[in-house]
């Protein structure tokens, strides 16, 4: 009897440990980033860090740690990728749920899932050998290593997320809404635009936010195709260097305990906070949408 209770307790404890491990890991990562990152500001003023456009830690003369250019770069690829992925993703979701027959659905869905499984390095390679030259040809540029290239590839990568979550949201719209709309004499298009999409909007917004999160954190692809010039970008045809790419490029060689080392952690902290807020927004929106439904 005693042995049984002991076993019960042990198992209970093990599952509890598994349950809270995510929280422990998350807090651990965040505190590691924060405690290292904060040391940057012993040598670099906060104003310079956020508002200087020059990031040049291995300078010939005076090193500089300004993240504005890479913040702008990061926002540019996110914006660019969402401009492409949101209409395409929602369009696909609507097609799957409302237009396509069962057969088409069965064929389409596995393909979308496979799209999510392509390794980012493969997509990046595609960007170098195919998308880059294509962009250069269409826009008459000398090369295609720029923000447009990054945006297109990130759009491809965030599409599966956007499609599957907005698909769920559209499916969750009660049948009665649609029937009521038809009963009032609305056609399919009006029903879709005026009834179904508004009813599913919080789910769609959550889908977009999670897609944004995917684009924000992606490293390898943007590192490979955007050229990584640390200059302040002026247009989508300029080469850009995102925060993730900067961390990936420089962390391998940075001497331990230097300002440069801490500055990379500071960039990581900012990135972490950004993706955390994107996820929290998505979570809040989804929570709201769940309470609406029930």
């Amino acid at each position: 009897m005693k042995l049984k209770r002991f076993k019960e307790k042990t198992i209970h404890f093990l599952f509890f440990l598994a349950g809270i491990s995510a929280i422990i890991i998350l807090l651990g990562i965040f505190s590691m980033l924060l405690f290292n990152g904060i040391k940057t500001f012993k040598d670099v003023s906060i104003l310079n860090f956020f508002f200087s456009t020059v990031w040049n830690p291995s300078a010939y003369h005076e090193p500089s740690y300004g993240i504005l250019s890479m913040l702008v770069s990061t926002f540019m690829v996110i914006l660019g990728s969402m401009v492409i992925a949101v209409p395409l993703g929602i369009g696909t979701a609507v097609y799957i749920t409302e237009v396509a027959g069962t057969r088409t659905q069965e064929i389409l869905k596995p393909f979308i899932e496979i799209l999510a499984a392509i390794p980012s390095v493969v997509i990046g390679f595609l960007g170098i050998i195919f998308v880059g030259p294509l962009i250069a040809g269409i826009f008459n540029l000398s090369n295609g290593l720029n923000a447009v290239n990054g945006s297109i590839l990130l759009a491809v990568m965030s599409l599966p997320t956007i499609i599957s979550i907005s698909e769920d949201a559209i499916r969750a719209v009660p049948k009665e809404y649609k029937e009521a709309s038809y009963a009032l004499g609305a056609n399919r298009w009006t029903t879709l635009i005026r009834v179904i999409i508004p009813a599913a909007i919080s789910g769609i917004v959550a889908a977009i936010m999670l897609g944004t999160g995917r684009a924000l954190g992606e490293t390898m692809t943007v590192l490979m195709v955007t050229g990584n010039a640390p200059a302040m970008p002026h247009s989508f045809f300029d080469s850009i260097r995102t925060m993730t790419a900067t961390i990936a490029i420089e962390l391998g060689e940075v001497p331990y305990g230097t300002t440069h080392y801490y500055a990379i952690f500071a960039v990581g902290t900012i990135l972490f906070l950004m993706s955390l807020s994107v996820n929290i927004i998505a979570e809040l929106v989804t929570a709201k949408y769940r309470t609406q439904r029930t």
Partner: protein
Amino acid sequence: MFYNFRIIIGALILPAILSTIISCSKNKGDNHSIQIKGSDTEVNLVQRLSEVYMNKYPTVSISVTGGGSGTGIAALINKQTDLANSSRPMKSAEIDQAKAKGVEPVPIIFALDGLAVITHESLSVNSLNINEVAGIFKGNIKNWKSVGGPDLEISMYGRQSNSGTFVYFRDTVLKGDYAPTVRRMNGTAQIVEAVRKDKAAIGYVGIGYVLIDEGKVISEIKIQKLAKDADSQPVSPRESENVKSGAYPLSRPLFQYTNGIPAGEILEFVQFELSREGQELIENEGYYPITDKHMNHNRSLGIIK
């Protein structure tokens, strides 16, 4: 009942197995394995040298990886590699750091590299002087027309800051900072690929990367002749005499750093690199054999007699 037991036993055994695996992988053992890490400029060359060496001595296994000189030196300091390939000398801060960790870096010079300034084959410019190259990469010269070329905005391709070539080029050619608009490519091969596709491109790479067998240049690439200054005669790095004599302005020694004077397998491999056979291999790969001056440097370290 039994099922529960199995889970518990599994939960206890699994960490034990994992920790055993981890501790085993930490334990390097003495199976004649040499780790070499660092410079991307050197990685293909050293790979070739080690292949030939391993054919001669099948009991030795050598693994060569790239990542950049900074990466190799960091690995040497952290005692994660036996030899660090570096296309630049170690910085004094790095040497201090190494000594603080009980690592005694020894600089062996085993080859010379001609750094090639490359453009697209179709570009009408055939030679540049060093000041022009510096002006382009600093961002002062923005159009090919300023150096006698077509009216085309120049696109510059360089390495990332963990590259020894990045540092060498900055310190010897630019003597200042790169323009922020220089694209920072992930490796030398990527620079070559980008330049091949870009008619307005300029890039700098170790010459071994753009020469194929018998000294031919790979397709769609042009190696620029370089002059020391506006008054000098531009010369090509493809003739090894120009590099050895120093007439070509961008030649540099390639280093391998060891922790302390090497012994055993590592010493034998280094001696092979410095032997006549090794130096001939180096020349066949598109690099240049070291001069007597560098040989004497190695002799003074006690690596060779």
